[in-house]
């Protein structure tokens, strides 16, 4: 046979190709136009995301298409994930702009790195092969390491980036090692190949379990769940707020995609083995995250710990897909996890968005004290932040309540009432620190009377963001259905 080069079907990867091209174009624009191009670069970045969204929407057929020798998949799940990623990255761009401009950090590198990280996330969402997963993950992670260190004058940022880099690399190593074991046991790197091999149970169990432990540990690191959570508060705290905003949103979606692709699309027959691992980590995250958050005075650290507990809640849903040997509620369970991630990203965007809105040149909102009296300074944004806090605490009518409700439903349907009670008790404890934020905003007098200034784009988007948290709380059905349909079409 001749080594004939056949061009693979590129259509499913059009959005990725566009993004890559545009990232290069933006670099060139910056190189040739210099500082004069900043507004252009920002506009081009947003336009790129918009173009990707259009392409994804146009190529979305709802069918599952494999390409690049089955390494890359385009299915309804990937399409929805990508749309969510574009959306949250675009929001990050808008929220961050004035903060970065005030500090002279709105260079093209920032936009290019975020776009490359986005490309990594898209690849993760579409991966059907262990190597593709890893490729996407590393592209995303390396870009983020650099982003955390973007404020190179700040020793705190450098420290955070260093920690993140070392621990993140370790996690990648663990993941890679685990994946190699799984390859050894199943003889394939393709995710649906793994599924077939496992279903026919030709696999070597001990090697598999061993590999699975490493894979799960790698995931835990990337998601930031206990006991692999140590980096989360440091990085959230050390990085400048726009980076924290970015880290806490889109990458969570991508990591969720990776977890689901490997554990559910690939290793679902091993669910009885990975579910208990996830369960322990989930419960520990809920406990540790909520308890540690109480002690924080820095709001970014508090949100970091709260993020840990939210990831725990999300994992809780993943552990309930298969029980008593059957997977009748699997779709319900994974939909709940998906919905939880979407809800978390919406809330996280709005919370850091408000912090960015309140920050201005030479002044960063860092501690809980800085939020004091926000209701007197700006009732509207105080209300938005209150929505986020009550939503995170799981109080209706906000999206967070329905996310928690749907996870708890999955957990109780799986018969884990004890776990549900623990989760609920610790959300109660968690409610305390969210209430404290509301208390600072509403019950205390402002310590700072400076007016809150922001561009129209930020104002509009932040308001929409806050209203979405309330709106999806009043009408939660639509988004849930979207998540469920995307998963249902792709899973079976």
């Amino acid at each position, binding site marked *: 046979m001749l080594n004939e080069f056949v061009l693979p079907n590129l259509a499913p990867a059009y959005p990725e190709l566009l993004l890559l091209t545009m990232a290069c174009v933006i670099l060139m624009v910056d190189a040739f136009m210099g500082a004069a191009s900043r507004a252009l670069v920002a506009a081009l970045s947003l336009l790129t995301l918009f173009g990707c969204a259009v392409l994804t929407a146009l190529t979305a057929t709802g069918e599952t298409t494999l390409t690049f020798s089955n390494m890359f998949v385009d299915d309804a799940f990937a399409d929805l994930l990508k749309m969510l990623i574009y959306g949250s990255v675009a929001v990050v761009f808008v929220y961050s702009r004035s903060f970065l401009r005030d500090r002279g950090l709105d260079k093209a590198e920032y936009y290019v790195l975020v776009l490359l990280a986005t490309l990594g996330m898209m690849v993760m969402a579409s991966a059907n092969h262990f190597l593709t997963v890893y490729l996407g993950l590393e592209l995303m992670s390396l870009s983020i390491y650099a982003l955390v260190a973007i404020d190179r004058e700040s020793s705190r940022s450098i420290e955070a980036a260093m920690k993140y880099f070392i621990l993140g690399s370790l996690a990648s190593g663990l993941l890679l090692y685990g994946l190699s074991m799984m390859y050894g046991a199943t003889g394939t790197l393709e995710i649906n190949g793994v599924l077939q091999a496992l279903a026919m149970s030709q696999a070597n169990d001990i090697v598999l379990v061993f590999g699975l432990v490493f894979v799960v540990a790698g995931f835990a690191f990337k998601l930031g769940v206990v006991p692999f959570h140590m980096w989360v508060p440091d990085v959230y705290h050390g990085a400048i707020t726009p980076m924290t905003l970015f880290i806490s949103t889109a990458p969570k979606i991508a990591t969720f995609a990776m977890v689901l692709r490997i554990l559910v699309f690939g290793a679902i027959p091993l669910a009885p083995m990975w579910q208990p691992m996830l369960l322990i980590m989930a419960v520990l995250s809920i406990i540790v995250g909520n308890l540690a958050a109480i002690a924080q005075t820095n709001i970014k650290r508090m949100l970091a710990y709260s993020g840990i507990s939210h990831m725990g809640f999300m994992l809780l849903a993943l552990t309930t897909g298969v029980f008593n040997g059957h997977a009748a509620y699997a779709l319900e369970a994974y939909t709940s996890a998906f919905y939880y991630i979407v809800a978390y990203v919406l809330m996280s965007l709005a919370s850091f968005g408000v912090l960015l809105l309140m920050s201005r040149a030479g002044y960063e909102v860092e501690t809980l004290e800085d939020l004091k009296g926000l209701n007197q300074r700006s009732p509207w944004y105080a209300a938005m932040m209150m929505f986020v806090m009550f939503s995170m605490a799981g109080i209706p009518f906000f999206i967070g309540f329905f996310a928690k409700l*749907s996870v708890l439903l999955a957990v109780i349907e799986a018969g884990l009432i004890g776990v549900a009670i623990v989760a609920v008790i610790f959300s109660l404890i968690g*409610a305390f620190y969210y209430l404290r934020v*509301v*208390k600072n905003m509403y019950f205390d007098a402002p310590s700072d009377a400076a007016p809150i200034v922001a561009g129209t784009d930020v104002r509009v988007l932040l308001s929409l963001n806050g209203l979405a948290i309330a709106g999806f709380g009043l009408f939660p059905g639509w988004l849930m259905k979207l998540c469920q349909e995307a998963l249902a079409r792709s899973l079976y």
Partner: protein
Amino acid sequence: MNSSLLSLAIWTPIIGAFIVLLTGDDRNARIARPLALISAIAGLLVTIPLYTGFDHATANMQFVEQYAWIERFNINYFLGVDGISVLFILLNSFITIFVVIAAWEVIETRVAQYMAAFLMMSGLINGIFSALDGVLFYVFFEASLIPMYIIIGIWGGPNRVYAAIKFFLYTLLGSLLMLIALIYLFTQSGSFSILEWHQLKLGMQPQILLFLAFLIAFAVKVPMWPVHTWLPDAHVEAPTGGSVVLAAIALKLGAYGFLRFSLPIAPDASIYFGPMMITLSLIAVVYISFVALVQQDMKKLVAYSSIAHMGFVTLGFFMFDSNRMGSMLGIEGALVQMISHGFVSGAMFLCIGVMYDRLHSRQIADYGGVVNTMPKFAAFFLLFAMANAGLPATSGFVGEFMVILGAVKFNFWIGFLAATSLILGAAYTLWMYKRVIFGEVANPHVAELTDINCREFLILGVLAIAVLAMGLYPYPFTDVMHASVDNLLKHVAVSKL
């Protein structure tokens, strides 16, 4: 089949709240106040057809509305009222008007937010009383914490932050366990419809666990001894309007929960736990009355008296006897007591508010001889104090008397103990009244007091009429609830095992 009256009752005040919020900051307070009053009155007007159009003969749910809300879990926007819940919707909408008027000149900072919080609260509470879907109930139940948290926290007294957070977390603790119970019921029945849960067969053990989960949720809300400690804090720190809504309406939510969830869903467990509930209620009635006796702070005194009165209510719910005569009297008496307590405690807190607005103190020791400077006020206050003590011809008497009658039918000694509260209630209320109102003018501040103005006269006058009318002719109230209570008791008598 769908009626929209209940939706109107819920959303009219809430939409009104948003309109009030639109007026912005305190420069527009002069617009915010009348707007709030109009919203509150509109809120009451839309609930009146609920009473006039109510069919007294049936125990079925009326004014039913049902729309799919979250299809994935079969959650519906499902509303309806029966004889048990309809009166509370009216009471709630009625009290909201007084809260708005009572705050007219008193609240000067962030007026729009204050009014909006109460209007939202009013709509959400109507939602609680009319929800027939478990999740919808829960959503309203929890969401109503938010405005109250804000009300206590912003406009409350010096220790308001502590009280607000304590109030929120205490109530949340209870309701989260209820959420688990609701989800468990869903997994058993495949539906969140409360009416379907009433028919659901359940074993003894699940019933016991469900009963306990609901008990924690509702006992905190009622509040029953020993989980009552949030109430005195919340009452003392809350602004007058907050105390009124808490005492008059919010406390009724827990008691209502027993009738809507615990009794019909877990009847066997309710009977099993009956003696325990009676014991807890009697402790509340007797012990808390003694606690009330020694209070120095008027608001705290009325707060403890509320706990004691709510003890009567829970006592009335759990006296199951074989011929249903005692329990019938007990539950109807308890419901009458709830409505009456809504008027009386609301009026008591408004009276204390009237004095507080003038002297900025709630300590009994700071008063004395108020009758000399505020004779009209003293007359109203006397009426409400008497009603609080359960004097015949006031509304306070009817409910207590019915519960005591039921208790005597059920067990003489329980009736005897319950009856002591009439003495204790008279003791702490009248002793407080004597120290505050009678005697010589105690200090120069009291000498400077001015009697109630038109606005205050109007509020107290209307409430006085309500208290007397209900005491003299309670039939319109008991008649509405009769069929539903009868049906509930028949339902409880049938074992679900």
